[in-house]
């Protein structure tokens, strides 16, 4: 028999994943290591528990209001699937339409190239500061760091992004990047970092929002360049869309002379009409509102209204590698609502930082490993109990649990040497197929009672390689007698 070598990532067709050394898709620790630390932070768990339960309630109420939610969700899924099947055609059409309306389209193979393009465009305007609308794509590619390295000042204008930036922190949620901070902590950050802030600032959210308004107002009025992401881009008309709440997006999209939009290639929809589906699905799923306060759309440049120079950067950065994975490509349907984070029992306890990527939670656990290649985020597909709540709330019906299982299989197949877990299961198979060995093993397992010293579970601190299993799982103390032994005791050994 010839040994068969497991094919390495057979579905990726050798397409490049997001490069290392740039951007924020990889953590410096594995999920279990980072999560263990997060779980010890009682304040973090209280903040997350409070925020996610609030938003779950709101989402549930406004979703229940729509009698056709199931049909909208299926239409959203089908529209995204149909779009991906013709992604090249739609992107070419978008490019034609944006160009025809006075915009300039740039293509970026990866984070490095996108950062270079944007830096060059900003420098060409002669300004040294830019205002930014919250955008996942620019977080993903580490654009702020690239611009700062080029000597430019970058101002995040979304309230939560501002809190993260001022606190020299990292975002921990797709929609509400400062979800891990409570009002008292935010007040403390503002008092420490905003020059001239009212020293009598209270922790009333209204008061805090006003402080942010004052802090950024001047900056908006003098900004000459803004950078945004995009929630949707309509191929047939070249219409870009930004969905937001505070009006900081409108400030950036309206007042500066130059607007640079960085957009993942999967954010495209074929027709204007398709937005009738997504503008119903997105706000109800994300903030639990019937509609978000502001949605802005624009096609190229409008004389006398808004920026007179518009650049659109189309970003790959591993997305085509995801597209090549027939099971995983569904993750590209994500509209970044974050409903899956808010229902996830793992996210609610561990928080977003533990995932190490700007995309945390269930969608991050599938998207990040696919964008980077699974071996660079190998612990993420396991950061789930596979309970399925994420799939249930996803407004475009991404089957996240199935993709998680698919990626786990891919990770296992990529191993050249058998893992301790694989060896353990191979041994178990042998034991379980031999009654004598099985009984012996069960009896031997009772020795575990000595280790647990009367506690219901065995201690987590076991020697390796067993510790690999026990550090994130409780092993119950073996019972005094096995089932067969108690059956024999109560009923006798006869038939």
């Amino acid at each position, binding site marked *: 028999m010839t040994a068969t070598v497991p094919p390495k990532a057979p579905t990726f067709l050798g397409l490049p994943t997001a490069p290392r050394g740039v951007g924020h898709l990889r953590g410096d620790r594995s999920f279990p290591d980072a999560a263990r630390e997060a779980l010890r932070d009682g304040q973090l768990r209280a903040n997350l528990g409070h925020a996610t339960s609030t938003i779950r309630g709101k989402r549930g109420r406004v979703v229940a209001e729509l009698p056709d939610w199931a049909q909208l969700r299926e*239409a959203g899924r089908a529209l995204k699937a149909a779009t991906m099947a013709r992604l090249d055609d739609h992107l070419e059409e978008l490019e034609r339409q944006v160009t025809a309306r006075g915009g300039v389209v740039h293509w970026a193979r990866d984070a490095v190239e996108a950062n270079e393009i944007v830096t060059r465009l900003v420098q060409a305007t002669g300004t040294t500061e830019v205002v930014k609308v919250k955008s996942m794509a620019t977080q993903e590619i580490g654009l702020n760091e690239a611009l700062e390295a080029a000597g430019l000042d970058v101002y995040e204008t979304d309230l939560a992004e501002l809190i993260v930036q001022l606190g020299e922190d990292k975002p921990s949620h797709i929609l509400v990047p400062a979800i891990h901070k409570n009002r008292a902590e935010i007040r403390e950050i503002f008092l420490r970092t905003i020059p001239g802030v009212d020293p009598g600032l209270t922790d009333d959210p209204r008061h805090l*929002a006003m402080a942010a308004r004052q802090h950024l107002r001047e900056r908006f009025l003098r900004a000459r360049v803004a950078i945004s992401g995009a929630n949707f881009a309509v191929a047939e008309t070249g219409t870009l869309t930004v969905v937001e709440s505070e009006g900081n997006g409108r400030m950036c999209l309206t007042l500066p002379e130059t607007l640079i939009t960085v957009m993942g290639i999967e954010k495209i929809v074929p027709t204007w009409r398709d937005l009738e589906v997504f503008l119903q699905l997105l706000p109800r799923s994300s903030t639990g509102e019937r509609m978000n306060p502001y949605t802005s759309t624009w096609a190229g440049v409008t004389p006398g209204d808004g920026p007179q120079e518009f650049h659109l950067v189309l970003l790959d950065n591993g997305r085509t590698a995801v597209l090549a994975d027939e099971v995983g490509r569904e993750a590209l349907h994500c509209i970044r609502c974050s409903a899956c984070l808010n229902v996830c029992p793992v996210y609610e306890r561990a928080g977003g930082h533990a995932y190490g990527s700007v995309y945390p939670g269930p969608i991050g656990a599938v998207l990040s490993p696919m964008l980077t290649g699974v071996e660079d985020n190998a612990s993420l597909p396991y950061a789930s109990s596979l309970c399925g709540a994420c799939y249930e709330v996803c407004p475009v019906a991404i089957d996240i649990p199935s993709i998680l299982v698919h990626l786990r299989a891919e990770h296992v197949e990529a191993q050249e040497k058998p893992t301790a877990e694989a060896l353990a299961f191979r041994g178990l198979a042998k034991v379980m197929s031999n009654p004598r060995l099985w009984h012996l093993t069960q009896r031997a397992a009772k020795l575990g009672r000595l280790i647990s010293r009367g506690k219901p579970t065995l201690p987590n601190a076991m020697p390796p390689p067993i510790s690999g299993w026990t550090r994130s799982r409780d092993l119950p103390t073996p019972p005094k007698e096995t089932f067969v032994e108690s059956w024999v005791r109560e009923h006798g050994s006869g038939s």
Partner: protein
Amino acid sequence: MTPPSAREEVLGRIRTALGPDRATPAEVARDYRLTDGRPAGDPALLELLVDRVEDYRATVLRCPPDQVDVTVLAALELALGAGWARGDVVVAPGLPAEWRPDGCDVDDDRPPVQLADRAASVTAVAVAIAETGTLVLDGSPACGRRALSLLPDCLVCVVTADQVVGSVPEGLARLDPLRPLTMVSGPSATSDIELQRVEGVHGPRTLMVVLAG
């Protein structure tokens, strides 16, 4: 040979990813509600719009079609309190003359930042969506440029009954995607602190809606 451009390369990767025998996309079933079932301007839709807009903590004043100007004045009075000057209010250049309170400033092509110290602006809308309490401004002369409905701290929007449709699909069908559109659902707000909604951040902190008819 010159190396392929980023454009060629990304498009090429997509074609590789999808393979030579990619599936033809299935026709998408639009079996969700395309209409609300009630015609634009139906009294029940107006009621629904009022309810939904007020739910965002905006204020709605209703009036007969021939009393828009005095109702706009009442809205400004209510929002700005005593001591406001008509010159502090700037209106969209194409706002119908009969809606325009005398003495208000009319927006022109001044630099947009000069609108920032104005107390309030008054605009029309292109369409209103009752189910979501959304007003859409389309950059037409009656709605004004985008900065006008953004920089003054109070926004007064005049909506006529025939502009009120039931659902999002009906609303979008009435809009021109080539114009710069702003969909407004209540005053500026944030949920960034503990996911609790707070009205009033960078956009107008006060939204007043005058519903005529």
